[in-house]
């Protein structure tokens, strides 16, 4: 079990205080996922901005009492993310800021690239996209076909299509992965601006979690100056998918955190409407165990960014628990519940989204099995 110290308990409390406001905005965002204007001034969005914008690039770190919170800690992020998702996960994903693109830029960008990117998304009204996935190749990132072709010395152009990209139609800046050749080390990550000629982001109609605003991005000769290629200062093995894998390792427990928060929101509703509902204690206890697993995954990542086993296990467990919590709530509250409580109807759609984010449960199972075969830790709470 991860015992939160006083500093993290303060962070958790501050985040929890903002969750109710997120829930109040959630249905409006679900009805109009691209109408984010009314939501930008929420306290939770300000908290997210403070927790994700590095101070050296103009960020104003969150402070709670005597404690300050700089960017970069997975455990810190997961503590506030569970609480905010307890309000509404769709709203969390609608927050402007660096999101997972910032994680990559911090890993692969040089100082100038990091500053350019973070300052571009620091105004509280700018989103970033992270374009890896392609149509027909959901889990097969290594098979990507988007091309990064050298046109002149110092200038490349992007050709291809990306799909299921969060913020892909509303993001102003982001990263696109593409290949310069056929080899495994030919995949590179490029900083791109959506306003560049040849960039076309089109929103995709999502079943749920509509605040994530997935999109398809078509790239028709988007210009990429060489200085926008990430990881130029790193060895070839550290330039491409290695960075994406690290981002996915970091983000998987975040998806799990969103799932835990959504499941807890379902528990809230049942507890309020039917306090003695059968199964309440069991569902709540399972979600709290998932929360602890999420925290443990964060602590593991803070020790070793390449340790992907617990993040995958946290995602497997939390995604299943959230869906089960939503179905249990539907069963417990009766046939009118999804009409009487539109948030419940929305959450029954939202919980399914987590399965498809940053690798399906089957993909996570493969990661876990490979880690165990490699001897990457014993099971049952042993590091």
């Amino acid at each position, binding site marked *: 079990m991860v015992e939160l110290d006083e500093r993290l308990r303060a962070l958790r409390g501050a985040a929890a205080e903002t969750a109710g406001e997120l829930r109040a905005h959630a249905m409006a965002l*679900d*009805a109009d996922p691209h109408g984010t204007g009314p939501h930008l001034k929420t306290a939770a969005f300000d908290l997210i901005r403070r927790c994700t914008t590095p101070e050296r690039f103009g960020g104003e770190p969150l402070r709670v009492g005597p404690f300050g919170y700089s960017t970069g800690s997975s455990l810190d992020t997961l503590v506030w993310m569970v609480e905010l998702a307890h309000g509404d996960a769709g709203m969390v994903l609608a927050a402007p800021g660096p999101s997972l693109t910032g994680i990559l830029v911090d890993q692969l960008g040089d100082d100038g690239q990091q500053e350019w990117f973070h300052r571009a998304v620091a105004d509280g009204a700018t989103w970033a996209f992270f374009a890896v*996935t392609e149509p*027909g190749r*959901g*889990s*097969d990132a290594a098979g990507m076909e988007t091309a990064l072709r050298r046109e002149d010395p110092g200038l490349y152009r992007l050709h291809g299509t990306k*799909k*299921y990209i969060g913020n892909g139609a509303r993001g102003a800046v982001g990263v696109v992965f593409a290949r310069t050749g056929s080899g495994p080390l030919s995949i590179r990550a490029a900083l791109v601006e959506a306003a560049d000629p040849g960039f076309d982001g089109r929103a*995709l*109609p*999502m*079943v*749920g979690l*509509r605040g994530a605003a*997935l999109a398809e991005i078509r790239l028709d000769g988007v210009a990429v100056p060489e200085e926008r290629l990430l990881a130029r200062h790193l060895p070839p093995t550290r330039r491409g998918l290695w960075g994406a894998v690290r981002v996915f390792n970091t983000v998987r427990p975040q998806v799990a955190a969103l799932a835990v928060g959504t499941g807890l929101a379902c528990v809230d509703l049942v507890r309020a409407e039917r306090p003695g*509902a*059968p*199964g309440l204690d069991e569902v709540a206890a399972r979600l709290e165990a998932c929360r602890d697993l999420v925290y443990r995954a964060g602590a593991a990542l803070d020790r070793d960014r390449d340790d992907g086993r617990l993040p995958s296990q946290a995602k497997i467990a939390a995604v299943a628990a959230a*869906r089960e919590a939503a*179905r249990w709530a*539907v*069963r*417990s509250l*009766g*046939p*009118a*519940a*999804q*009409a*009487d409580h*539109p948030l419940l*109807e929305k959450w*029954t*759609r939202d919980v*399914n*989204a987590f*399965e*498809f984010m940053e690798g*399906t449960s*089957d993909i996570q*199972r493969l990661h876990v099995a490979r880690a165990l075969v490699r001897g990457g830790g014993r099971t049952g709470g042993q590091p």
Partner: protein
Amino acid sequence: MNRTSTDLARYRDLGREGGLAAGLAAVLEGVDAAATAPGGVAVLPAVLPAGTDGPGGTEVLPHPFAALDGLALVRFAADTPGAAPGPGLTGRTAAALTAVRIGVLSGLLDAAVERLSARRFGGVPLIDHQFVGGSLADVATEAELAWSGAVREAAADQDAPAGAVWARHERLTEAGWAATRLFGAEGYLTDHPARSLHLSALTADLWLARPSTAEGDR
């Protein structure tokens, strides 16, 4: 095939070939919706703008994609005759809804097999990966199990308890979710036919009474 199977096959084939709305329309033939819906709300086979008055004194509730399948989420007005909580679909009508849902699932499983055979991961067709093939087989088995349950229920002299009906549909809901996963993220877009599996679950949620408290504690 006995008479009951033949009757249910018509519903199944309607769900498979005509879609959820066509199948639901057949299930609800002769059913007083307001008097039957167990929560005063229902999914109906109709395309109606949200916020308007629907047929028979209903209020059309918003839903982001029900209309894409020719469905509307409605609430019966409190003063509608028979609008008190009804028994939900039971007996033969519950079995007919099962058959429709099996038909919808069956059609999408065919589409999933086609997709999984064409796509490759690691040089191997997705359908040949053990996880994927196993999921497909499990869904198909649940569909067969649900069919047997529906035939038994339709042929029974007495309606099955609400808990038994709910449990059968809940297993179909889980099978539908497993089938949705076979389409990957594209199955999570409302312009993909797999949206019907989500709406199939919602339809059952609103048309079926819940098990008693003791049965609900699983």
